Every structure is written in structure tokens, then in C-alpha cells.
């Protein structure tokens, strides 16, 4: 037996999904995260998961991982003390940016903190020109001195970004060599290896973020790799990048900046596949975990891919999915602010100590505590009975908060839910309404440990009429790791005017990229029949600074290529801007190959319709507090594992499973579709 394993580690829980390549069997497991060292929880989840399915860890044929380590370090400014060395005269560039203020009208808005303080931004004499000639050679002694100064100041990472470093790389290469000799213990990175593209501020920012996160990711990956090896995992572990593609651990260590959206993008990939199976292609994903919530919009099954984005205030040049994150989840703490208003988050109780009901000493009520008091969540146990909780502690904490608001405890608990729902609705408006999409036209895919619990109220707030709750909502991210092909992008920037004279260089560029792609296929052990590549060229009119991607079909590079590209570009430009500038020279800017290795994927079987009667799945009845009647209402509690295709459940009802709880509101009906996903619709 060969098992493919996906592990998603969030701020609160670590989920593992196991897929037997031979039988198609899918199993899931969940353990509490270990935020001080996430690799502990991960190895524990793998060991327990393997034991659960009766497999040996040595039989694991693929290990995929999505992580929030990089993004959390960036949000919480917990990267390392970092130094920057740059061209003389330009150390403030990192702070000046594009000289725009953070908000056009809000005079109180601030820029995000600069990741390298001004005294750790050092300049050295050196100057390249745009044509690659050297005006001032790199002053090696000055560079040495700068490295020593940073070493003495106690930095752990050094970013180097010289003007035109991507056009002629030798100064940055020398810098890298000196850093390796003089300061080998530092994490060092140079701009042309991180983001070899023009626009010095964005390149510098990307390089600095990479350095700032480097040691954090390096230590994390090393620890995790070691622990997995100790456990007996022999395959190369893989990690999701911000674009939804997957790379080996070693590469992720060099370019941590490409993994800032690793965790969230894994969920989008999972939701995309589940949506496709269930027959819905216009989706809003709602991934609510313990610490944060990620939302994204998929139109026609695709999430918008950006080549550059501002993440938590910092410009990053790397391909990433358009995902919006808010710092609120089930563990978010509710409190009364100085103006006397009830607020929720962004502080979180996380997994340790966790919500008050975990009885690990935390005293301030969280969203989870509110649900436990309202009894939308099971008042005695979580995780399918594996974890006992204390409702009395949660109630005492909520009562204390209620007293400071002069409100009733139950109304306060419901108030916490209302506030968090409004926060979530605002996040969804960012990816829908603000991009011109009406959320009412979309299906809400609710997952993450807390997604299905809050989805019904959220959908009501946004007037969304349909909710899709995947079969295993709590581990959809982990499952997403097993639903996707392996993917890597290779790119080379070489400026040419489109003409037959450029053809030898075009052929050369693509053969280099092809070789890189083949090497990657080889390293991943992807059989020749499973290899897929697509070529594109980013093109523009000479004079423009933004390119349009033009697909280049397979085939020899020859005179016909020029015509194919010219026609493809004209069509793309006409479509995008409504005009073609006949006679203007056209430039080829970046050549790209997207390589995909088709892998065996977890597949799901359609189950025959057994009819609407769901009474066999009723496990219990429970009083649930509903604001509609301002009191407790007796609701049936269904066991999700016993629900069958075709079953229908009228709200109000609660559906429990090991990794999540789904709330069906009074005016809603839930039905089980053939792949055992739940569809909630307004009755």
C-alpha cells in the first residue's frame, strides 16, 4: 500500500488527510496544534493518523504540507532582526516606497512598520547602469565593513539589493560570496535570486521580506524535516506555495517569501475541487479556523492569480492567489472597548491555553465559548467526544462580560456571534462587492473548524442563498493537498522586440526553461506520460510597462512563432483595451513555462440516493439558544457520519461530526448530495 498524506497546520488545529493510492480510501485525523513548535503537532498527527488507518509511516509515498508559519510571522512582526545593504544613496528607498501615503483620505492612517530599521540599512559605493555597464565597481572593502557592522549589531538575516542587480548580477554575486565567507551564520539573500524583475522598490521589499522570514522558515522546515525523518517518513516533503502550486522543502527554505499564503491557498484548492464535484463553479470560500479566517472568490472555478500583491502592507513580487485574511476565528477573544462597545478579536486564545471552556486557565470569553453557552456547540465534548470541555467556566466568563455591558448573558453570547458575523461579512465584501461581484450570485463554501458553525448566519447577512459544507470541512485544507497536481512555474525575463531576429533567443530561453522543468519532473519522480507543460510569453507594446500573457502553443520555435505571437497579442490587447496600435513595435518581456505533474488524486464516489428520511442519523436532542425566539429551542442533533445521500433536514438542527459542527437555521433546509457534501438552502 502507498499512502499520500496531506497535513495542514493552522494556529489552533493540525489536520491530516490520508489517501490510499491503491484502494482510493480517504481518512482524516486532527490534533491540537503546538504553536511554540508546530512540527511537534505535525509529526504527532502523522503518527496518529497512520496508526488510525493501520499503515506504517514508511509506506507514505507523498507528503504535502500547508503552513501559516510565514504569514503569521509577517502579521505579528515576529521575523528576525534583519539588515539591508544597498547602493549608495538609496538606503531610505525601503521606507519611502512609491512615496504614496497609506490612505488617500484618512489622515490618521499609518504605513506598516519598516522591517529594517534605518540604522541597519547600510550603503556601499557601487553603481550599475541600465544597460549593464558598471559606472562604479562594488567597493569590496566597504561591503566587508558593512557586513561586519551588521554582524556586530546582531542581525540574523541580511538582504542585498543593488540597482539593476537583476540585469547584471555580478555585484550581488560578489556580495553573496562575501556574506558567505564573513557572516556564514546569517540568512543571506540577494535581489536577483528572489525577484529578478525591474522596479527597485518592489524588488527590495520582496528581498527584505524573504530575509526577514528566512531564518524562521529555515528553522521550522529543518525541525519538521528532522522529525519526519525520525518518524520514518522517507519521501521528500512538499509545501504549498502562495499560488496553490507545490514545491520541495529545500526550495521553500530558500524562498520563504513564496509561501506567505501557503496555508490559505491550500484551502482554496480544496474548495475548488469540492465545488467542481458538487457542480458549483461560482464560489466564495469561507475558511474559518481558530485564529484567522480566509476568504476568496472563484469565478468559473478559478481564483484570480496575481503576480504581485501587497501582503499585510508589504509589496511582494511572487505569484499568489487573491485571498483576503482577517484576524478573527473561533478562538478570538471578546471584550468591551474604551467606547463601551463589544469587540471581538484580533487577539486569540489560540490552541494553548485555548478558549475558557478548555479549562487550561484562560479567563476571557472567546467565540467558541459563546457557542458553547448557546449550545450551538456541544456543551460537554468537542472533537467527536475526544475532548471534554467545561460549559460552566465558559458561562461564568460570559456572565462577567455581560455584567460590564449591563446585558443578559445569553444576549451577550449571541452578541459575540453577531459581531464576528459582521466582521466576516466585511471580509467577504472585500473579495466580492469591492471587485464588482454580487455575493448573492455565489455559493458559500464553509470549511475550517468554525466555518460551518457560522456559515448560516453569515449567509443570511449577505443574502447568500446556498451554502456548501464539504464532507470533511475541518480538514479540507489537508485534503486539498491531495486533490491537486504538483505544479511549478519557471520564468525568465529577457527583453526583445518581436521579430525573426529574436527567434534564436526565444528558442534558447524556452529550452533553458524546458530543461529546468524536466529537471523538476525528474526530481519529483513524475512519469513522462504524466508531465504537462504550457508556455506563455508576457508581451506589451514598446513604451508600455505592463504586459499581457499570450499563450504559445507547443511546437518548434520558427518563423510561424512570430505570427502566432503577434496575432495572440493583438487579440489579447483588443480584448483588454479595445484597440490595437498597428505598426508600433511589440516587445517580448518574460517567457514562462508552467509545469504540472499529474498525480493520483483522492477521488470520491457518488452514493445512491436513499431518500429524504434522515431520522436514522439523529443522535440526540439538545436545547439550542436562538435569537429568533430569544430562548432555548429543542433541536435534533444529527450524526454527520450517518447521513446518507438524498437525506433532507429541516432547520433548526445541529449536525455534528468529529471535525466540525454545522448549524441549520430555522428557515433553512439541508440536503445531502451524492458526494455526501451538505447543501444548505433557504427553504
Amino acid at each position: 500500500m502507498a499512502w499520500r498524506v496531506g497535513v495542514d497546520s493552522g494556529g489552533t488545529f493540525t489536520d491530516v488527510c490520508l489517501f490510499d493510492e491503491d484502494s482510493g480510501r480517504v481518512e482524516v485525523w486532527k490534533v491540537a496544534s503546538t504553536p511554540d513548535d508546530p512540527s511537534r503537532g505535525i509529526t504527532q498527527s502523522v503518527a496518529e493518523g497512520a496508526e488510525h488507518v493501520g499503515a506504517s509511516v514508511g509506506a507514505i509515498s507523498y507528503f504535502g504540507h500547508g503552513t501559516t508559519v510565514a504569514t503569521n510571522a509577517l502579521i505579528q512582526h515576529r521575523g528576525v532582526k534583519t539588515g539591508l545593504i544597498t547602493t549608495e544613496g538609496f538606503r531610505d528607498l525601503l521606507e519611502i516606497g512609491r512615496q504614496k501615503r497609506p490612505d488617500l483620505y484618512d489622515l490618521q492612517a499609518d504605513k506598516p512598520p519598516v522591517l529594517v530599521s534605518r540604522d541597519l540599512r547600510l550603503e556601499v559605493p557601487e553603481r550599475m547602469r541600465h544597460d549593464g555597464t558598471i559606472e562604479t565597481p562594488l567597493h569590496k572593502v566597504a561591503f566587508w565593513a558593512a557586513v561586519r557592522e551588521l554582524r556586530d549589531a546582531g542581525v540574523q538575516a541580511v538582504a542585498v539589493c543593488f540597482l539593476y542587480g537583476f540585469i547584471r548580477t555580478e555585484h550581488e554575486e560578489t556580495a553573496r560570496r562575501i556574506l558567505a565567507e564573513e557572516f556564514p551564520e546569517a540568512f543571506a539573500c540577494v535581489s536577483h535570486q528572489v525577484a529578478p524583475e525591474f522596479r527597485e522598490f518592489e524588488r527590495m521589499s520582496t528581498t527584505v521580506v524573504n530575509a526577514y522570514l528566512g531564518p524562521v522558515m529555515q528553522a521550522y522546515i529543518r525541525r519538521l524535516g528532522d522529525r519526519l525523518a525520525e518518524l520514518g517518513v522517507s519521501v521528500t516533503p512538499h509545501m504549498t506555495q502562495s499560488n496553490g502550486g507545490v514545491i520541495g522543502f529545500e526550495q521553500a527554505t530558500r524562498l520563504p517569501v513564496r509561501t506567505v499564503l501557503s496555508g490559505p491557498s491550500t484551502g482554496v484548492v480544496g474548495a475548488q475541487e469540492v465545488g467542481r464535484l458538487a457542480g458549483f463553479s461560482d464560489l466564495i470560500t469561507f475558511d474559518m479556523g481558530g485564529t484567522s479566517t480566509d476568504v476568496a472568490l472563484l469565478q468559473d472555478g478559478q481564483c484570480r492569480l496575481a503576480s504581485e500583491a501587497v501582503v499585510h502592507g508589504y509589496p511582494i513580487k511572487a505569484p499568489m492567489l487573491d485571498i483576503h485574511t482577517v484576524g478573527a476565528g473561533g478562538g478570538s477573544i471578546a471584550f468591551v472597548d474604551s467606547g463601551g462597545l463589544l469587540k471581538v478579536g484580533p487577539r486569540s486564545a489560540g490552541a494553548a491555553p485555548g478558549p475558557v471552556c478548555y479549562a487550561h486557565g484562560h479567563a476571557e470569553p472567546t467565540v467558541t465559548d459563546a457557542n458553547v453557552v448557546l449550545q450551538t456547540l456541544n456543551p460537554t465534548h468537542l472533537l467527536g467526544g475526544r475532548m471534554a470541555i467545561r460549559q460552566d467556566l465558559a458561562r461564568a466568563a460570559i456572565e462577567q462580560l455581560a455584567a460590564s455591558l449591563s446585558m443578559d448573558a445569553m444576549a451577550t453570547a449571541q452578541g459575540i456571534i453577531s459581531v464576528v458575523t459582521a466582521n466576516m461579512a466585511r471580509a467577504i465584501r472585500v473579495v466580492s462587492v469591492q471587485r464588482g461581484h454580487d455575493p448573492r450570485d455565489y455559493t458559500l463554501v464553509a470549511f475550517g473548524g468554525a466555518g460551518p458553525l457560522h456559515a448560516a448566519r453569515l449567509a443570511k447577512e449577505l443574502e447568500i442563498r446556498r451554502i456548501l459544507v464539504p464532507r470533511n470541512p475541518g480538514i479540507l485544507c489537508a485534503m486539498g493537498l491531495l486533490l491537486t497536481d504538483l505544479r511549478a512555474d519557471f520564468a525568465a525575463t529577457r527583453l526583445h522586440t518581436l521579430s525573426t531576429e529574436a527567434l534564436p533567443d526565444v528558442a534558447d530561453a524556452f529550452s533553458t526553461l524546458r530543461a529546468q522543468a524536466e529537471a523538476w519532473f525528474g526530481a519529483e519522480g513524475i512519469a513522462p506520460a504524466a508531465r504537462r507543460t504550457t508556455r506563455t510569453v508576457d508581451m506589451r507594446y514598446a513604451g508600455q510597462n505592463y504586459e499581457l500573457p499570450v499563450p504559445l502553443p507547443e511546437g518548434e520555435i520558427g518563423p510561424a512563432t512570430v505570427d502566432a505571437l503577434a496575432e495572440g497579442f493583438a487579440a489579447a490587447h483588443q480584448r483588454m483595451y479595445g484597440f490595437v496600435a498597428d505598426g508600433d513595435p511589440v516587445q517580448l518581456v518574460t517567457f514562462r513555462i508552467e509545469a504540472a505533474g499529474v498525480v493520483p488524486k483522492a477521488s470520491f464516489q457518488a452514493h445512491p440516493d436513499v431518500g429524504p428520511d434522515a431520522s436514522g442519523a439523529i443522535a440526540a436532542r439538545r436545547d439550542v439558544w436562538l435569537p429568533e425566539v430569544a430562548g432555548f429551542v429543542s433541536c435534533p442533533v444529527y450524526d454527520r457520519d450517518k447521513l446518507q445521500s438524498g437525506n433532507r433536514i429541516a432547520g433548526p438542527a445541529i449536525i455534528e461530526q468529529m471535525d466540525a459542527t454545522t448549524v441549520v437555521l430555522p428557515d433553512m433546509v439541508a440536503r445531502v448530495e451524492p458526494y455526501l457534501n451538505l447543501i444548505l438552502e433557504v427553504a
Partner: protein
Amino acid sequence: MNDAAGAQGARIAGVDPITVEVIGSALSSITEEMGEALIRASYSTNIKERRDCSTALFDIHGNTLCQAEHIPMHLGSFIGLIPHILKRHPMEQMRPGDVFCGNDAYEGGGTHLPDIVLAEPIFVDGSIIAWAVNLAHHADFADRGHAHIYQEGLRIPPIRLYRAGELQRDVQELILLNCQVPRERLSDLRAQMAANRLGVQRMQALCAKYGREIVLDASAALQDYAERKMRAGIAAMPDGTYCFADVYDCPEIDGELAVSCEITIRGDEMHLHFDAPRQVRAGLNMTYTALLSTVYYTVKTLVDPTVLPNAGLARPLHVTAPEGSAVNCVHPAAVNGRLSLCQRVVDLIHGALAAAVPERVIAACNGACFSITFAGHQPRDNAIWVYLETIGGGSGARATKDGLDGVHVHMTNTSNLPVEALEIEYPLTLLRYELVDGSGGPGKQRGGMGLRRIYRAEADCRVRVDGSRLLSPPWGLFGGLPGGKSSVVLNGGAVPFDHGSGALRPGEIIEVVTGGSGGYGPPEQRDRNAVGSDLAEGRLDATTARGAYGF
């Protein structure tokens, strides 16, 4: 944005609040998308990198439905244009695909000639329901003089550049022949067409989805909503009359102009009266629409920055200034450099309202939109090149926070041009680009720092610098001290400039330093750790730390 239009906006709209919100957000995303198309399709550095352009939607009466968050100043050119189009061209003769083009300050509603506006009526079911409008600052018309508007470039009244979708080639040729860099102008005009085309399509799609009546009703409701929020915000400010006076200088004139304002808040309305000397033979003058857009921006930021940027916000505001003065100029005053005086008007309002809302106003910013324009012949093909850039500076200290360092403030918000884009396009080398140490005005909250940019010419070129605060420093508030002044320094053997204009030969160097900004509160009350870290980071020197802060 006038009273006649107010009646339209006041109509009760029977649209549910969620639909109103969705349509309001759709209008803003349409204008944002128009802006992206304009920037991506354009060729000139001023648009494609510096983003000196704006996009908006207007209703048929000329009320702003929505303006994208680009450059507040550009609203001044937008609000004047539609009335001028309607004055010259009967609406019943307009056809789908007509595109009007204009820039004139006196006959086209513009604020200065480089800002060329394209406006296209949006037809739904055979009649006009709104306008797609955009403006691009065409960095051209260089090295011509600013004694009066006839020197400042080609004056274009609102005329059809496209008639029923067909380009009027003779009109376009007339425009291009009057430009120094026609290839850029042509491509930027095409990019402007692309932006409006997108706006028209998206608005038509919106109407197809919700129905035109719903879209129009929601648009009216959004204006009423903006008005309500403005009125509520003004009503919450203390009634009274607030005055402030300042001086204005720029390289074009000798000495300083005295400028002042008197603001009266009564109930939920605000009256703002400005005074300045008579208009001058220099490009610093402001048209009335430039004054209006300045006031709209400033009051919005002080009353409630979240008020939607549409015509409703103007209804409670009454703006006056003597006709023929520098802040409300008449034909044939030159207006090219109006932006720096507009920045001073913003500071005046802050200075006056410091007594009313001390926690919201900020100290004087760098007080300019410092610009430098280079023009010459490309060594490679002798073609004329023109390069304009504007440089940010300090933003005023706030009641509880330091001012922002090295940013564009208030009426402008253009990007800088990356060095790696600048040097590929023009025979210039950038030697330094940095924050100016010590330029942030000392205070409990420190003022923002100015910027230094040093250029070396690689070929012969004509150069013009424009800005302000060369003579007087940006003031502080409530005991905060003034920030650093701006300056221009020539090196490498360059001949001194005359009133901001001169020439550079290859190897000669020009250094521009922009102003910092004023501090807020007495410096001796500043947090000691903040003084220490400013000192460690070189933002201030030991002498200032001792002298101003007692550190």
C-alpha cells in the same frame, strides 16, 4: 455639484439598503478598473508608473457619482467639464460612441492644460444615463512660459474627438501637432479611450442586471447618504467662526503672497471664504473648480474620511473667494502650477479648524507638490523628450502620532518613478534619493521628513523646478516647531537658475530638497524613547536632540 442638481439627488429612492450598497461598491470598482486599464495601456512614465491620472462616473446633470481614489486635485477638472459640454453640445444630438475631449481652464472646466479629460456618454436603451470620465496628466507643453494661459499649451474646449465611435482624425492631428512628444500623447489618449470604454461596458452591464431605474435610484440614494453623513459630521463640530492666515512663495515670483481664510460653522453647514492678492502673471493661480475640489477634499478628511466621494458631500458646503484673486482666477491667468497653492489652502483650513477639532487637524505639511520638469533632445534620435516628476515631503504631525515621512500629501498622491524606469527612458542619472535628516519639525509628535533627490544630466536639457516653502517653513501646532524648508541646489558647474528655470549640460547636477512638516505639541513632552530612536536612526542630530528636546 450645484444646487440644480441637488433636487435630483434628493429624490427619495425606493431601493433596499443592500442593493444600494452593492451598487455603490460596483460604481467604485468600475472607476478603479477604469484606472487600472488607463495605467496598464499607457506609454508615458507619468501615467504608467507615476499614475498621474483619475477616473470617475458622473450623472447626466454633472454630479459626481464616484471618483476613484487617485488624485483629489483632478476632481476640479471633472466637475467643470460636463456643464461646459452641455453648454456647447445639445444632448439630443449626442450618439453612442461620441467622446468629448477638453482641457481648458476657462472654457472646458479644467484646472490646468496638461490635464486632458475624455468624457463619454453612457447610453442605455437609447438614452444617456451617465458619463464615463477620465483624466490623464499629459506631461507635455514644456518650456513655454507661464505669464498667461496662452503660453501654457494648447487650449482645448470640449469638442468631439470621436463621433459615433469614429476618430476625428483632423482634430487629433491638430492636438498632436501642438505637442512636443506626440507618440506618448497618442498612446495615452488611446489608453484613456480604453478606460472609458470599460466604464461604459460595466455601467451598461450593471443596468442590464439591476435595471436602469434601480441603478439611477441607488446612485441618487448614495448622494443623499453622503450628504447626511457630511451634515451629521459638521453638526457635531462646535459652531463658530475660525480664521487663519499664512504666506505663499514659489520660484516664479519674488517675495510672498498673503493668503487667509475665514470658516463659519453653523449647524450642519459650513461656509468657507478665502482671500488672496489679485491673480499674478505666473502659473500659480487657481480656478474656482480647483478651489472647490480642494475644499471638498479637506472637509471630507476632517469631517469623515469614509464619506463616499460623490456630489452629495458638497451640498452642505459654501465656498467663496474674490473673483480675479489668485485663489479664484479669471481669464487669462496662467494656472499650470496651481497645485502648490491648493496645498496651502488645505493647510489654511487645518490651521483655522485647529481651534474647533484639535484632535483631527494636522500640522502644516510640506506645502507643495514639488515638481521638476526636464526637456531636451534624445541623443540617440534627436526626438524631443519631456520628463515631469513630482516629489513628496513631510506630512504634518498629528495629535497622537508623528507625521508621515516622505509622502505625497493632501491634493496629490502620485507615485515616484523607479530609478530603473527613469534611467532607461531619459538621459538622467539619479545619484541620491533619501529622507532629509532633521527636517521633521520637533514636537511631542514629530513632523514628517522631507525628501532629497539628486539628478545628474547626461545630455543638454532645459529644466524647470516649481514648489513652495522655499522661504517660510511649514508651521507646527500647539507648541510644535516648524519643519525644514525646501531648496534647490546646483552643482557640477551648473549656471544658477532664473525664477526656477535654467539649463543643465552633461555632468551637471541638480539637487531638490522638499520641505518637512510641522510638529504637534511641545517637543519637551516627547517620549524619551522616541527621541532616542530618532537619534540612533539619524533622523535628528545630537544638537537638535539637546536644544529642542532637552535630551
